[in-house]
């Protein structure tokens, strides 16, 4: 992992097209602004990982008929 320290209002460039800026800096929370092309997805890491994990579970899908039973209420 590349480690850089930044102060409020300072930025990092990732490649030519992505900028990460420190907008606000409080004691235990930093507000980041991200400029990136539309083709690049930007998400909070824990959400990203949770969805990735859930997708993997979904790919191991078993019987679809069980679903129909469940949905018929």
């Amino acid at each position, binding site marked *: 992992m590349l480690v850089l320290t930044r102060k409020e209002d300072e930025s990092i460039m990732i490649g030519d097209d992505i900028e990460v800026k420190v907008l606000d800096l409080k004691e235990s929370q930093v507000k980041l602004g991200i400029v990136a092309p*539309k*083709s690049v*997805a930007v*998400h909070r890491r824990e*959400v*990203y990982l*949770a*969805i*990735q*994990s*859930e*997708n*993997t*579970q*979904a*790919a*191991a*899908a*078993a*019987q*679809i*008929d*069980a*679903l*129909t*039973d*469940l*949905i*018929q*209420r």
Partner: protein
Amino acid sequence: MQLETVRFGTLEVAPDAIITFTQPILGFQEYRRFVQLPGPSDYLRWLQSTESSELAFIMMVPTVLVPDYHVDVRPAELSELAVSSIEELEVYTLVVVPEDKSKVRTNLRAPILINPRLRLAKQALLDRSDYPIQFFLAPPHQGQGQAREASHAGLNP
């Protein structure tokens, strides 16, 4: 064209039926091309990879469970899918069917959006904490020994 699938055997699919993901399903970076196959009801469908015979997802129409399910998509994502409004897209949510059938669930936070006309798709991550990543279809256990509801009695023979 011939498509090899583990679940359905060899299928004949029209090349223009192939859906291309503009961004991959998270965790499935290398798999961009899928076909939709019918499921046992009109609200359940398979999303079968054309690049891996084993890889398939179950998708459901989320409004069957959440009638007011609503997706807010940024203009950049709409143009990525070559549409001008969300109404032009088909919206599905991926379903997880684990061994324990009482834990069948769907991901309301990250729906699959499909442009049916141009066959472009992506998985969108919604900025809504009220749409859970794990939305369980079965009601929670009421307690030990209590009779299960008829709706999911069929799952536990």
